C-alpha cells in the first residue's frame, strides 16, 4: 500500500460525519469545518499516524514569502498595498464587533500608535502571523513531526504528524503559536491549529487581529519546484462570520542561501514608548523623535 493510499484513507476517516463540508480544493480532500469536537474541523482523535520517509516531499532549502507582509492579499485595499500604505485594510468576513476592533486599530495605525509586537523583541509572532513574516523560512519535514522555522524572530512552529491528538481541552492553555496536529495527505501537509493566544499579536500592521477563539486548518504543499503554497482556513466565532480562506506562497531561494541568527534585542534602536509610538534612537541612545516620541 502506498502512503498516498494510506493518507487518502486516513483523510477519509477524518471527515466527521454530519460535519459541514467545504469545497474540494484542486481535487484534494478538504477537512470539514464546524465539526463537533474540534472547531478546526479535523478529527484529531483519529489521525493516521506518521508517513513513510520515502513518501515525504522535498521542502529543503531556504524560502521567503512571495509578497509583502499584508496577510490577505486577496482582499487588501488598495490593491497591492503594503502594511505601510496609508489607509490599507483587508476585508475578512468580520463580525460587526470585530469590524469595530479593526476600525479602532486602524485609527491607531493612522496615528502611529499601533506598534508591531515583534518590534519589542519579546513575544513570538504567533499563529497565523508566523506565515506572514519578512526575511526567510525553512520547512523541515519528518514522518512524525514538521517544523516551520522563521529567521525573523526567530519563530518555531511544530506540527505533529505522529497520530497524536490535541491536548484535552482541560489540559490546554493558550500559546502564541498554538497546538498543531495533522497528517500527510499525499504530498500535502494538513494540520489543525488550536489553543492560540491571539491577544497581543497581530496579523499585519494594518491593524488586523483575531480573537483567542481562533482555530485553523492549513493545507500546505509544493505547487512547483520552487514554490510552496499554504492555504489557511481560519475560523473565529468572535471575529469572523464564516471561515476565512487565506493563501500564502513561499518561493525557494537559490541553492547555497543561508539562514542567520536574529537576535532581536541585540541592538534594537526602535523601541516603543508607553504611548505606543515606535521611535528611533540616536548613536547616544537618546530618542531622535523627542523624549516622549509623541
Amino acid at each position, binding site marked *: 500500500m502506498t502512503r498516498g493510499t494510506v493518507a487518502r484513507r486516513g483523510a477519509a476517516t477524518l471527515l466527521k460525519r454530519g460535519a459541514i463540508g467545504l469545497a474540494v480544493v484542486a481535487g484534494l480532500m478538504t477537512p470539514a469545518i464546524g465539526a463537533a469536537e474540534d472547531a478546526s474541523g479535523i478529527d484529531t482523535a483519529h489521525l493516521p499516524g506518521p508517513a513513510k520517509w520515502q513518501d515525504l516531499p522535498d521542502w529543503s532549502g531556504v524560502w521567503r514569502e512571495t509578497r509583502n507582509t499584508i496577510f490577505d492579499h486577496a482582499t487588501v485595499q488598495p490593491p497591492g498595498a503594503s502594511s505601510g500604505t496609508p489607509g490599507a485594510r483587508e476585508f475578512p468576513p468580520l463580525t460587526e464587533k470585530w469590524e469595530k476592533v479593526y476600525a479602532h486599530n486602524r485609527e491607531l495605525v493612522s496615528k*502611529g500608535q499601533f506598534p508591531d509586537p515583534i518590534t519589542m523583541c519579546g513575544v513570538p509572532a504567533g499563529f497565523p502571523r508566523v506565515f506572514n513574516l519578512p*526575511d526567510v523560512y525553512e520547512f523541515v519535514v519528518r514522518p512524525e513531526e514538521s517544523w516551520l522555522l522563521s*529567521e*525573523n524572530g526567530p519563530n518555531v512552529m511544530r506540527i505533529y504528524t505522529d497520530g497524536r491528538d490535541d491536548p484535552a481541552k482541560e489540559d490546554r492553555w493558550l500559546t502564541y503559536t498554538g497546538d498543531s496536529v495533522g497528517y500527510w495527505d499525499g504530498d500535502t501537509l494538513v494540520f489543525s491549529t488550536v489553543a492560540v493566544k491571539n491577544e497581543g499579536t497581530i496579523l499585519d500592521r494594518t491593524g488586523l487581529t483575531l480573537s483567542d477563539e481562533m482555530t485553523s486548518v492549513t493545507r500546505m504543499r509544493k505547487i512547483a519546484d520552487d514554490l510552496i503554497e499554504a492555504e489557511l482556513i481560519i475560523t473565529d466565532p468572535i471575529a469572523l462570520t464564516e471561515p476565512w480562506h487565506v493563501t500564502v506562497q513561499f518561493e525557494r531561494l537559490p541553492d547555497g542561501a543561508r539562514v*542567520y*541568527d536574529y537576535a532581536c534585542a541585540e*541592538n534594537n534602536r*526602535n523601541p516603543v514608548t508607553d504611548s505606543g509610538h515606535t521611535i528611533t534612537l540616536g548613536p547616544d541612545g537618546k530618542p531622535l523623535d*523627542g523624549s516622549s516620541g509623541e
Partner: protein
Amino acid sequence: MKLAFRLRRTGLAAGVAVAMAGWALAPVPVAAHHSANSFDSTKVIELEGTVKEFQWTNPHTWIQLYVVDENGANVEWSIEGGSPGTLSRAGWRPSTFKSGTMVRIKVHPMKNGEAAGIFVGAQFPDGSSLGRW
C-alpha cells in the same frame, strides 16, 4: 537637533546634498522589524560623508556617517538598513562600509528633520553602488 538642508547641484563635495521631494518609490524595504512612521518614504535625500561605524547587528544594521553640514559642523547620521541575514543574502558583508570610507548615501529621512534615515542606496568612490542608486 534639527538640520537645515542645503541644496547643492552636485553631490561630490562633503556635506548634505540634494534634497528630492516627492519621489515615487517602492515601499521602504528595511522596516521589517518596526513601522516606518517616523520616516518619510516619499522623500529621498542624498548624503555624502565618512563612515564612522557600520553596526552589523540585529534587528537592523546601522551606518553611522559623519556628514559636514552647511555650517561646517560634523554631524553624525544614523542610517538604518535591513537585518544582517537579509543583507548578506543580497551580497552585503560586515565590511561593506569600512570605517573611514567616503561614501554617498541616499535615505528616506526622518519626518522631523533629525539626522537619521532609512537606507535607499549608496555609491562608493570607485563608482560601484548598492541598493537603489
